[in-house]
């Protein structure tokens, strides 16, 4: 048994189109993780917390998109815009009502609270919409069988890119550009960055720090709502558990890239996607169900050499 299993129909030969197909899948999956990593980063930058309910919030938003589109007949994008706005309000509200009072207690309290939210949202969705997968899934992008760009057709298998995958990439790029515009070109963004850099000094110069923390949660909830809808279509699954695994890889992506870096979230997401797809494909000693373990190893390696992540900034602590 060899160590390398070249991805292909025939293990002896390298198959270019299959490799490219794997790579696009990896990058599309990676973009999905990057979307979730973005939500993680938006909250971590200002509050320093991880929101374990992030995935469930996105799942809940996606279900509301589902209700609006499939049951009420809304246009998909109109529904997404509505739900994003609603999610932002709810996200800010959760921060204000549930997280802020716990802020001073301990590190543990907000974590436990988000774990509690996880249960409430997860169980709530299962109670309202049942535990069965739902279909049809609202489709933000054309998602029929032949909605794809054929690139190489004279080999077996064909190499093509689906519109769904392109949609994930476009969503990611647009969101990152918008976030950059918001953070780098507006006064609101300046205030947000100031709070991320030093909350106490920001307070002294008159920045409403608490509102900026709420903004972080609002942005995360909004991005999560978009991500949820896009991911549901891309993965073709909508049930009460569909975001749990995605969020874990999103955490991994944020961890690899650095918890306070938007660029890091994107690079980390793509890296995690590539590792997840390629390690079982490349090495025979890794079973395909172990991609999660591989991602865990990548986190460990990155943390060992760069504890702040690839693009994260070091936190200096005063005693």
């Amino acid at each position, binding site marked *: 048994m060899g160590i390398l299993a070249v991805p292909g129909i025939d293990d002896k030969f390298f198959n270019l189109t299959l490799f490219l197909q794997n790579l696009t899948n990896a990058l599309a999956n990676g973009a999905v993780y990057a979307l979730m990593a973005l939500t993680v980063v938006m909250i971590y930058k200002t509050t320093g917390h*991880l929101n374990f309910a992030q995935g469930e919030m996105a799942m809940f938003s996606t279900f509301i998109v589902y209700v609006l589109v499939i049951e009420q007949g809304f246009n998909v994008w109109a529904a997404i815009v509505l739900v994003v706005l609603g999610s932002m309000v709810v996200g800010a509200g959760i921060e204000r009502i549930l997280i802020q009072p716990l802020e001073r207690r301990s*590190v543990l309290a907000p974590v436990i609270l988000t774990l*509690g939210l996880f*249960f*409430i*949202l997860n*169980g*709530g969705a299962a109670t309202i919409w049942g535990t069965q997968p739902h279909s049809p899934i609202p489709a933000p992008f054309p998602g029929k069988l032949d909605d794809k760009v054929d690139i190489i057709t004279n080999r077996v298998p064909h190499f093509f890119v689906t519109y769904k995958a392109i949609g994930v990439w476009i969503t990611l790029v647009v969101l990152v550009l918008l976030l950059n515009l918001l953070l780098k070109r507006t006064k609101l963004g300046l205030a947000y960055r100031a709070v991320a850099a030093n909350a106490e000094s920001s307070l002294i110069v008159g920045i409403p720090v608490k509102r900026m923390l709420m903004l972080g949660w609002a942005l995360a909830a909004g991005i999560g709502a978009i991500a949820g809808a896009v991911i549901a279509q891309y993965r073709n699954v909508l049930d009460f558990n569909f975001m749990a695994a995605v969020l874990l890889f999103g955490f991994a992506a944020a961890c690899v890239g650095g918890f306070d870096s938007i660029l890091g979230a994107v690079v980390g997401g793509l890296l995690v996607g590539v590792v997840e797809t390629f390690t079982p494909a490349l090495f025979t000693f890794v079973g395909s169900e*172990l991609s999660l373990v591989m991602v865990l190893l990548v986190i460990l390696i990155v943390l060992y050499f760069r504890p702040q992540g690839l693009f994260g900034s070091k936190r200096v602590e005063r*005693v």
Partner: protein
Amino acid sequence: MRSLPVIVERKSPWHRAFQLAAVLAVIAFFFFVTNVAENFSASRWAIALTLTVAILGLNIVTGYSGQISIGHSAFFGIGAYTTMILIADHGWPFLATLPVAGALGFAVGAVIGIPALRIRGLYLSLITLGLALAFPAIVKSDNFFGIDFASITGGSNGKVISNGDVTKTEGFHWNPPSWAPHGWTTNDWTFATVFVIALLMFAMTSNLIRSSVGRGLIAMRDNETGAAVSGVYPAQYKVLAFATSALVTSIGGGCFALASSTIGPDTFGLQRSIEFIAGLVIGGVATILGPFIGGVLVEWLPYWAFEVNWPILGRLEGPQAGVLYGAILVVIIFFMPGGIVHGLRQIRSKFVVMVPRLPAAQEFSTAPIVAYELDGSHIEPDHEIEIAQPTAKERYQ
């Protein structure tokens, strides 16, 4: 003068009386389960006790060292699988498997704990989150770096505690010995075994926390740099804390294998880890009694949620119990941030305050105070000067 709260010095007769009452409560609990409660519930109580031990282990890391571990389900699983495999496939006696389970948990905990030296708080929680998700995958895997784990662990089918063939009626049974009280069932005997082991683990952890190691951990939790400056060597303590915590949890896992007699990979997933955290928070973080209350609630709460007809809610179903669970967590963290134990302590402090015993108050000379005039002549005091010894209560008010 207020009569409440009553102030009780530690090690005074009254304090001893309180301690005696606590011991009696433990004994009463034991007799309640073995004699009064229904037979099926003895095995549930045994499982609840194994969970309390697991949460006790988590408490060492999360409560006393202030690091959040979401991966203790994996250590619980390591212990359970070690015990199960040694009993079922190698015919070991149950008690002999526990040291092995503990040692294995300790070793894996140390390996995980070493990278934890570099990572703090959130990062550790992420690594351990990954561990919780990876454990079932590794157990099910038939090709983990070339190792076929599934053939050892039974893969996704799990394992049943019996020697060899599952269908045979002979094989492993944890029967009460001849000296056990008459009428004890296997369940009662299992409970008694787990009870004694749990008692040992609680005593051990309680002593550990009160030792210099425990104080070092607490100091590091409160201010790591400050503790390091004061001579607590962080690297050593962190690895030790994580490994010891894994050891305690694995022993809980080993008992779980005995108590539940069937285990599968998904018994030890993320859900279990979150149960541990929930139990710890509900019971009381950084207390010795907290894990006990938490473990019992974690085991019985879903049962009560399903079986009891709630006043408004009616009978709950699976996902709704999840909502209830989450809601309890949120409510506890909001209104009783220290968990049930701290809540009880606050209520108790309205009535009784325990204070440490101080060194005996300074002995004052009983000789009369003598004063002299400037010319050296003696002045007789016109009355006895009495120096009041402060009572214990006054010292604390």
